[in-house]
């Protein structure tokens, strides 16, 4: 056993760091490091910059235009990007539909869709959940009925992240109503500009707009947009969910947020002294830092298993649960660190260009909203309760 990175891996880390220093624009960096709302344009700009460097697909194999990095390099890359304040890359194309198309799509689909994900030309969103199909995804009802050379899609998806910016949505739809729930589902790619597609915003508890309802009314989707075989969509979806969970631990961004928490604590006062020196606060901060340290090692264990070609197993559930809890704990501590100044809630102050009169320290402005917003992390991507069911059933065999 050896927990240190090899000289090659360290050299790689240096290379990434240099790139970030030179090429990551300060405006993008600032939105992330200060916890402000990053506009959609930041995400696209960053994807394009990476693409120009040849790094548009950090987790993709070279045959599809990716970097071909092994899991450890991917991890180093993500960690450095997060630390530098790079916008989060959209997972929907790179980590979800991309790998599904590579594995189960046909050659035409690969040529048509994959390059546009790498270049940032296409913004994808994920159309799985429905009002009556959340944790119980297999009960989904959006239907696609074959009519000659196309499917006619009708139904409603909900909670769709950033669908308001999306060019494409990948959907689970029901193509066989007689089969048992999992057996009648297909994986369909739908152009958001097709007539009959409607996006309606859902206002979240922090006042933000990042999720949407997506409605389909007699939407004609060419049969060539079916991925793999009809009625095999559940298999592809399960393949994809494994990927989604493995990347949900967010170690890199939690490390960055831990540093932000430390900066805030050093700047805040309690009884006239730095909050960082307060034993109550220091103990709670240390606890989160320690939890994160343990999770990082667990994450590396899972990665090295992956590097040895063992497929990501149900351990991903552990990463998801602990990762989301740590994200929430950090947000909670940051909010508590600023005392009464956590309460003012000025949505406009969360945009990078805010020119109004500040109240309280600038670092306090986004904290309550972030705390509220991050309640989502234990709900989405398979809720933490569902993840525990998976651990109980698949790891413990109960």
């Amino acid at each position, binding site marked *: 056993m050896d927990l240190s990175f090899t000289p090659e891996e360290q050299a790689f880390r240096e290379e990434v760091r240099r790139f970030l220093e030179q090429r990551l624009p300060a405006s993008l960096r600032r939105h992330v490091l200060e916890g402000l709302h990053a506009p959609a344009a930041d995400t696209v700009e960053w994807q394009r910059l990476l693409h120009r460097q040849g790094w548009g697909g950090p987790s993709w194999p070279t045959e599809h235009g990716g970097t071909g990095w092994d899991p450890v390099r991917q991890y180093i890359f993500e960690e450095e990007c997060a630390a530098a304040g790079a916008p989060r890359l959209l997972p929907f194309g790179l980590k979800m539909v991309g790998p599904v198309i590579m594995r189960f799509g046909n050659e035409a689909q690969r040529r048509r869709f994959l390059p546009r994900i790498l270049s940032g030309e296409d913004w994808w969103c994920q159309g799985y*959940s429905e009002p*009556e199909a*959340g*944790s*119980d995804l297999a*009960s989904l009802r959006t239907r696609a009925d074959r009519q000659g050379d196309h499917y006619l899609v009708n139904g409603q998806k*909900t*909670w769709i992240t950033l669908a308001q910016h999306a060019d494409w949505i990948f959907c689970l739809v029901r193509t066989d109503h007689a089969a048992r729930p999992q057996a009648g589902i297909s994986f369909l790619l739908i152009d958001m500009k097709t007539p009959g597609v409607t996006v309606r915003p*859902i*206002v*979240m*508890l922090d*006042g933000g707009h990042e*999720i949407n309802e997506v409605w389909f009314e007699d939407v004609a989707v060419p049969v060539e947009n079916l991925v793999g075989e009809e009625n095999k969509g559940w298999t592809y979806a399960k393949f994809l969910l494994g990927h989604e969970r493995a990347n949900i631990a967010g170690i890199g961004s939690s490390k960055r947020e831990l540093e932000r928490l430390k900066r805030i604590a050093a700047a*805040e*006062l*309690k*009884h*006239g002294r730095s909050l960082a020196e307060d034993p*109550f*606060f220091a103990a709670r901060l240390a606890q989160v830092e320690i939890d994160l340290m343990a999770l990082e090692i667990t994450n590396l264990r899972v990665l090295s298993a992956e590097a040895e070609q063992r497929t990501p197993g149900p351990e991903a559930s552990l990463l998801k649960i602990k990762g989301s809890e740590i994200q929430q704990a950090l947000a*909670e501590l940051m*909010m*508590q660190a600023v*005392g*009464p*100044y*956590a*309460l*003012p*809630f*000025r949505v406009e102050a969360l945009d990078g260009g805010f020119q109004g*009169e500040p*109240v*309280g*320290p600038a670092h306090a402005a986004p904290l*309550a*909203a972030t*705390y*509220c*917003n991050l*309640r*989502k992390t*234990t*709900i*989405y991507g398979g*809720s*933490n*309760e569902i993840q*525990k*069911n998976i651990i109980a059933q698949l790891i413990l065999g109960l």
Partner: protein
Amino acid sequence: MHFNLTEEQRALADTVQRFLAQQYGFEARRKILRSPEGWSREIWGKLAELGLLGLQVPPEHGGMAPAAIETMLTLEAMGRALLVEPYLASAVLGSALVGALGSPAQREALLPAMAEGRRIVVPAHGEAGARHDLSRVATVARRGGAGWVLSGRKAVVVHAPAADLLLVSARTSGAVDDQQGISVFAVPPGSPGVRLIPYPLIDGQRGADVVLTEVSLPADALLGAEGAALTALEAAWDLGVAALCAEAVGVLQATLDATTEYTRTRKQFGGPIARFQALQHRMADMLMSVEQARSMSYLAAMVATSDDLRERRRKLSAAKVVVGQACRFVGQQAVQLHGGMGVTDELAVSHGFKRLMAIEASLGDTEHHLERFITESR
């Protein structure tokens, strides 16, 4: 020993609950929140008619103080309805401070008008560097002309934009954290040199920073003896803690009820999600948390005005710790058990969650009260 209410107390609780159930539903409240002022004068008038604005006002000024249990019952009902009007700010903290510090003339000028709903009087005490320390006051008042001149900045004054009168604490002597040397002044918000920077708070209520630049006040703007206001401020804040605990219990119960109801009706995997034992146990934990908070809100109401300072501080801080922890746990789990619906603005649950957040952070957060409990137990 008993936990029974009198006939009158039960009737009061019924009246308040019925009034709020009829006039302060979720949609009515949403409309109020979206109005320019963010609270309703009409509702305020009705609270006055019901006698609720006089619960901290002595009978000789038109109120019914002391009324610890009535206050508790009222705030619990208000918590259930997520009331956003400046009740805690003016009818509890403001009235208590005027009652404790005001001269007979000042009391007569303010308290009846407050009880009748004609004037809203809001303390402006907290400051940026103070966090939750009551004695840390950097705003200064010096003698000038025939009266006083105030300069400084008050932070996150809840409901300052609604105030007809601010009760501003300022240092008339001593170092920034001295116990002695803090005085309270009546400051009309329209006075030259007073500037409010208003904003909504996370729970939808309104607040402001109050910037004071060489504000000239007459001699009789001072409430109480010069430099000796800390005791009264602390007493008012302690009364406020008891009130907040009671309000929290109302929000907590409503939030728990909404969650059990939701899990009974929400169906996944072929039946209601309430049948999953993982969720049943979670809700059992939530119930225990609410009941412990309720017990402590009773204790808080009973000791809120006690003369035994040490006991008062210990027990109120203990109550705020138990309640604060319940606010966090129950609030978070209620959202969690609602799944995606929990993080939308659409259901009451997220509004309750945010009010619980604000309650935990107000009048001393959990950590502050844990620390005060330790200090007072030594």
